[in-house]
């Protein structure tokens, strides 16, 4: 109990004094995860819509794989990205290992299946509603996907937020490919792991509370910006 109170106290102090170390790793957390979420959304949302709208061989197989990939273990993703980006790996020449870019790559791999799968579910229902109309109006394939993505934007925002949630709290992959280097690749989650390992529970808890507050703040901000839950159904 003492640890938690201590942690809250320390968190408050860190936030109020705008601790430069805390600000730095918080901003890096945000930067890495927001970038990864945007990239994964750009990839995952159309992918989900495309799978919902098209009938092709192996479609069920593709959906099953996508759903399975949602449970991709971050540590394994981190390991694979590490091997690919390491000096002796195929992409070693780019020198990306232990940079925020490597962390973004790993997170994109982890959350793209989540975003694609959730958006597929949402778009599939919308497609059932719109199917006859869009066929009747002979919308092209690209127009159909565009319409479904736009009209399903609220559900798709949920998909993106689910991806964000997974990425912001993820530690396994970014620890491996980022290396938790101070002033370079240290983010909230890796810092928490480090402080816990050192036995500095107060600081670890403080960082944890900041992390939770950050996740809530991003969700609230997006909801306010997009005005969800204001109208009745859409």
């Amino acid at each position: 109990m003492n640890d938690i109170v201590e942690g809250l106290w320390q968190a408050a102090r860190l936030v109020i004094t705008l601790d430069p170390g805390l600000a730095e790793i918080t901003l890096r957390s945000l930067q890495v995860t927001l970038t990864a979420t945007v990239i994964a959304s750009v990839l995952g949302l159309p992918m989900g819509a495309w799978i919902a709208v098209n009938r092709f061989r192996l479609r069920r197989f593709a959906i099953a794989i996508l759903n399975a990939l949602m449970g991709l273990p971050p540590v394994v993703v981190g390991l694979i990205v590490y091997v690919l980006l390491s000096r002796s790996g195929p992409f070693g020449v780019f020198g990306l290992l232990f940079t925020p870019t490597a962390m973004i790559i790993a997170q994109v791999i982890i959350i793209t299946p989540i975003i694609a799968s959730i958006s597929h579910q949402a778009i599939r229902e919308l497609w059932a509603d719109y199917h006859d109309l869009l066929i009747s109006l002979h919308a092209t394939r690209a127009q159909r996907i565009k319409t479904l993505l736009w009209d399903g934007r609220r559900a798709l925002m949920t998909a993106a937020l689910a991806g964000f949630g997974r990425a912001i709290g993820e530690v396994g992959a970014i620890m491996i490919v980022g290396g938790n280097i101070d002033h370079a690749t240290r983010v909230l989650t890796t810092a928490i792991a480090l402080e816990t390992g050192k036995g500095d529970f107060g600081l670890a808890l403080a960082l944890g509370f900041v992390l939770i507050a950050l996740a809530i703040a991003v969700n609230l901000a997006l909801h306010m910006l997009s005005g969800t839950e204001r109208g009745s159904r859409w």
Partner: protein
Amino acid sequence: MVSAILPLVLEDVELRRQGKRILGPVSLTLEGEGITVVMGPNGAGKTSLLRAMHGLERINRGRAVWQGGAEEVRARQAFVFQTPVLMRRSVLDCIAYPLILDGVERKMARARAETAASQVGLDVTLTAPASVLSGGERQKMALARALIRAPEVLLLDEPCANLDLHSTAEIERVLIAARDRGTRIVMSTHNVGQARRLADDILFLFDGRLIETGSGDAFFAGPETPEAMAHINGDLLP
């Protein structure tokens, strides 16, 4: 108006679903002007016939042939569904949607949608979401959306099902106005009174087959088949 995609010729069109014949074989030619009303009891194949004409259903045997290129044929007909499809947009954007697909600039499309809405007598806040419309208003919205491309052929599947008399009368007024502008209309209805008021021609379906055709006046004066007779008199069919 010079017809480009008519006549529509159906040759022995047959639809099967799950091994059951649901329509056909039906052969007919659709040309000229006016309103053709498709009548028949539930399950007779009215919806299937309309959807097959529009190309929404896979035809298992026979064929439906429009005149002109596929692109033109698709662009110059419109369909109104029994249950209007509501997009998760404002009423105005729902109506403007076909124009947006055609690449019309948004502002222009909205202006034309406003005109279309007033033509069908849709007197609501056009910026409100479509989901707040009442049943009659939804059908009017769907009608405005169907008419906005000025189609040559308009197909309607039970446009007045579940509507009260007042809304029905308004929809009929819009349909008659469209016909007078040269739009060829094919619609199905359960309502014998509505068929009497609107039909220039009748297609009477029974058990998936087209068993009687003719001008509206002749059909209602003296139907040739006992099934059609029973249907207009409201008798129960065996």
